[in-house]
C-alpha cells in the first residue's frame, strides 16, 4: 500500500532504519575517537612461519612477488641476492636470518609463494622476504607496548615494540635496525 506521497511503508521503515543506523554509527565513531585519542599508526602485518610481525606502513614502499634473484658472492648470509624490478636493482634480504629464527639458506625455487616487502629508511632501501602478507591495520600509537625484558637484547633491538593484531601478539619491527646490520 502506498501513502499519498507515493512512499511505501516499506521505504519509510527502511529510511527510519538508515537514519537510526547513521546516528548509531556517528555515536560509535565518537566513542571510538574518544577511546583511541592520539595519533594512529598504520601497520603492515605479515608472517614468517607461525609468527606474526608488523612494520609501520610509512616505511613500506611496495610489496612484490619475488622475481629472478641473482646471488651475490662475498655478502653476509642474510643477503639472498639482487632482483631487477622494472630496471631498479633491489637488494633482497632474508628477514628470517636477520631475526635469527632460521639459519637454512633460502632456496630460490620455492620462493614464488612468498612476498618481498620493500622498506625504505634513512635513504636506504631493501626488500625483505616474508612468507605471507596478512593485513594492513590502523592502531593508536599508544597501543604499541615495549618489548618484553625476557627477549634476548640482540633480538630486542630489532623491534620497536609489540602490538596485538587479530588476537595475536606481533612484533613491530624497527626499520632502522633491520636495515642496518
Amino acid at each position: 500500500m502506498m501513502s499519498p506521497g507515493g512512499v511505501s511503508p516499506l521505504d519509510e521503515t527502511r529510511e527510519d532504519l538508515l537514519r537510526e543506523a547513521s546516528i548509531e554509527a556517528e555515536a560509535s565513531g565518537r566513542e571510538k575517537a574518544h577511546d583511541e585519542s592520539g595519533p594512529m599508526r598504520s601497520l603492515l602485518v605479515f608472517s614468517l612461519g607461525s609468527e606474526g610481525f608488523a612494520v609501520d606502513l610509512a616505511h613500506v614502499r611496495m610489496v612484490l612477488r619475488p622475481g629472478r634473484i641473482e646471488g651475490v658472492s662475498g655478502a653476509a648470509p642474510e643477503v639472498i641476492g639482487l632482483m631487477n624490478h622494472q630496471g631498479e636493482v633491489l637488494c633482497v634480504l632474508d628477514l628470517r636470518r636477520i631475526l635469527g629464527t632460521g639459519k637454512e639458506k633460502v632456496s630460490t625455487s620455492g620462493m614464488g609463494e612468498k612476498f618481498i616487502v620493500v622498506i625504505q629508511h634513512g635513504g636506504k632501501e631493501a626488500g625483505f622476504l616474508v612468507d605471507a602478507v596478512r593485513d594492513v591495520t590502523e592502531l593508536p600509537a599508544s597501543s604499541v607496548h615495549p618489548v618484553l625484558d625476557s627477549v634476548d637484547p640482540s633480538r630486542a633491538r630489532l623491534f620497536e615494540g609489540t602490538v596485538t593484531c587479530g588476537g595475536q601478539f606481533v612484533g613491530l619491527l624497527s626499520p632502522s635496525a633491520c636495515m642496518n646490520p
Partner: protein
Amino acid sequence: MRRAVRRPAVAVGVHEPVTTGSVDLLLVDDGTALRGYDCRDVVRVEEVPARAGSTGGYLLRLGRLGPSREVACREVIVSVALTAREIRPVPPALRDRMTGEMPWAVGITERGICLLY
C-alpha cells in the same frame, strides 16, 4: 607575421639523445654470482685444469689499468658492452653487508644482474 610553432617533444625520425659512452666488460661466473671486469684491465685469461678435489675453471689476470691481481672463476661467459643506462650504483643495503673486494657498480645484462669490479 611569423607564427610561433610548438616543437613536438620527440621529433619524428630523430632518436632520443642517449649516452654514447659504454664500457666493455668480461662477464664471468664465480659459482655464486655473475661478475663483470673491465676488458681493458684484463691482461690474460688462463684455463685452470680440473684436479682431484677441484673442478677447475679460469684465472683472470688483471692489472692493465689498475693494480695487478688474479681472480679465479668457474666460467668465462661473454664480453658485453654496458651503457650508463644499464649500470646502477650498488644498493647501500648490500654495500653494508659485503666483505672483501667491493664492486663499483651493478650491471644489468641479458644474462642477469652482475657485480662490476
